[in-house]
């Protein structure tokens, strides 16, 4: 005896339900199709949302880990002093503090030249990675060139460039930064901090190890520097990522809402199918009742039918949705395996749950109606 037979013996409602569904295969098939479409819609729209979110956060990189401290111009403070930087260093327990000076300068190599942003930094290695060459631990001489500027002026490590008449040997060309960044290196040149005019700093970038650490640092910096007067404004990129996450949350809910409409339609079609089939089987159900089958068992039998339609539709829909997700992620993210993540699993479970739930709910009225018909009435032709 197979497992299925065993299950049927144990749960007779399922046996009856399965036989009843196979009575009119086309009708059952169409009802299942409705659920498949609904489940597919919910799951794949949910996964579509995940893909968009993943794509967006790839674009954003880990900017959530960075905060920027800049002088508060409204209070008349124009630059951050060494003392401010020291206080920031003390406030930040976990992460790199990089004071930055910036200016626009004329950069040239040979007969090519361009005006670009020049950052003065002591420790650029905390923020950037090299594409070619290497970034020294402390930048005391030499320059780092962003990928954009390097392309424009055809610069490689070892070349000599001139910045406002001063010559530098190029130590490294920096890797292109795809995401949003507080101090984007792409079209910039980075030189030792003493070489940029001024005594203070235009901003201090703090690069923490995690979003949480960044947030704690921001709080600590505000406490330390803004105690007496609002000396600095602290900008957390996390606020952007939080906003973006919220946006994608809403987008996802919206997409799933659209998917749910198709499930409701599927539910109505199951209601219709079940109602028709119970009306057709009126006499049979009357016989069941006459030979001693309780109302509750009739209800169970019909709910099992509706549930089976839902489970069949849910399983097929889930399989198709995974297929759709793999195709989507392969196309959008170039990474089909991105389909298999917890968020997507939840969407699939949610969709299948909705599918089965809708079906069973749609079976309730026909079940109730069939079970409450008096057997005498049902048996009279």
């Amino acid at each position, binding site marked *: 005896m197979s497992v299925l037979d065993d299950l049927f013996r144990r749960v007779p409602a399922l046996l009856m339900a399965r036989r009843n569904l196979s009575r009119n295969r086309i009708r059952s098939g169409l009802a299942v199709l409705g659920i498949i479409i609904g489940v597919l819609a919910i799951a794949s729209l949910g996964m579509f949302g995940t893909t968009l979110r993943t794509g967006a956060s790839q674009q954003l990189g880990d900017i959530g880990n960075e905060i920027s401290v800049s002088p508060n111009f409204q209070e008349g403070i124009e630059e951050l002093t060494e003392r401010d930087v020291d206080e920031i260093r003390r406030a930040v327990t976990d992460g790199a503090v990089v004071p930055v000076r910036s200016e626009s300068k004329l950069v040239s190599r040979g007969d090519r030249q361009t005006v670009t942003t020049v950052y003065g930094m002591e420790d650029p290695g905390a923020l950037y990675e090299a594409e070619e060459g290497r970034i020294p631990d402390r930048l005391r001489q030499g320059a780092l060139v962003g990928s954009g500027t390097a392309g424009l002026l055809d610069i490689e490590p070892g070349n000599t460039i001139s910045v406002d008449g001063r010559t530098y040997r190029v130590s490294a060309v920096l890797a292109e930064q795809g995401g949003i960044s507080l101090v984007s290196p792409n079209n910039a040149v980075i030189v030792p901090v003493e070489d940029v005019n001024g005594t203070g700093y235009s901003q201090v970038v703090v690069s923490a190890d995690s979003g949480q650490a960044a947030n704690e640092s921001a709080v600590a910096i505000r406490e330390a520097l803004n105690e007496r007067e609002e000396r600095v404004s602290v900008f957390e990129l996390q606020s952007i990522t939080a906003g973006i996450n919220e946006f994608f949350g809403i987008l996802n809910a919206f997409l799933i809402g659209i998917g749910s409409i198709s499930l409701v339609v599927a539910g109505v079609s199951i209601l219709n199918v079940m109602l028709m089939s119970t009306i057709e089987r009126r006499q049979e159900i009357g016989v069941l009742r006459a030979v001693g089958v309780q109302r509750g068992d009739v209800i169970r039998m019909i709910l099992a039918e509706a549930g089976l339609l839902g489970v069949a539709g849910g399983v097929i829909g889930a399989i198709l949705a995974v297929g759709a997700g793999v195709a989507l992620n392969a196309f959008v993210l170039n990474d089909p395996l991105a389909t298999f993540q917890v968020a997507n699993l939840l969407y699939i479970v949610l969709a299948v749950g909705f599918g089965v739930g809708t079906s069973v709910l749609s079976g309730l009225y026909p079940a109730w109606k069939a079970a409450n018909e008096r057997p005498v009435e049902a*048996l009279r032709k």
Partner: protein
Amino acid sequence: MNHIIELQRVWKRYDTGGEVVEALRDVDFHADPGEFVAVMGPSGSGKSTMLNVLGLLDTPTEGTVYLDGQDVTDLSDREMTVHRKRFIGFIFQSFHLIPTLSALENVEMPTLFGDDPTARDRATRLLERVGLGERLDHRPDQLSGGQKQRVAIARALINEPRILLADEPTGNLDRKTGRSVLDLFDEIRREDDVAVIAVTHDPQLGDYADRTVELIDGRIQ
């Protein structure tokens, strides 16, 4: 002897929008274990109505129904269903087998919802007894009328009832097949001590019955 089932002063009225139809009028009736009672009468005289009241499918408007000495007139639907399952087997003119189930499954059907490990064996033996040991896995549409009625009789017997109620059991069968079904009834009531109450227009049923009750216009004559 104790009556297995008894009706006392039973009335059944149907209120059909103003006009009241009296389907049963002051009916007293009883049957004993092992007895074969034929119920006869013209169409519309209340035979099916009486059988439904006897089978706890319907409740009388007035009067009392006793089953095995117990007053079962005002039981709840659930209790009536339990009593039907325990005491009563039904046989219908048009068999009323479930088309999606095999002969064996049809016979098992009354036991399906409930834990009954020996049901399959009993069903097999009953089908062998009614001469369908070779047809266990056939669907109803693969059986002749007489065979279907035999399956229905086996189904009625699966829970070892005390009463068999049959509404025109031979009505859809030819004379010879009808006779074999009646032989089966006769055997059952003898061997199993079951009361058989059969509504019929079939005159040959008179040869089998211990007693014939005639209903006219809802009254027992």
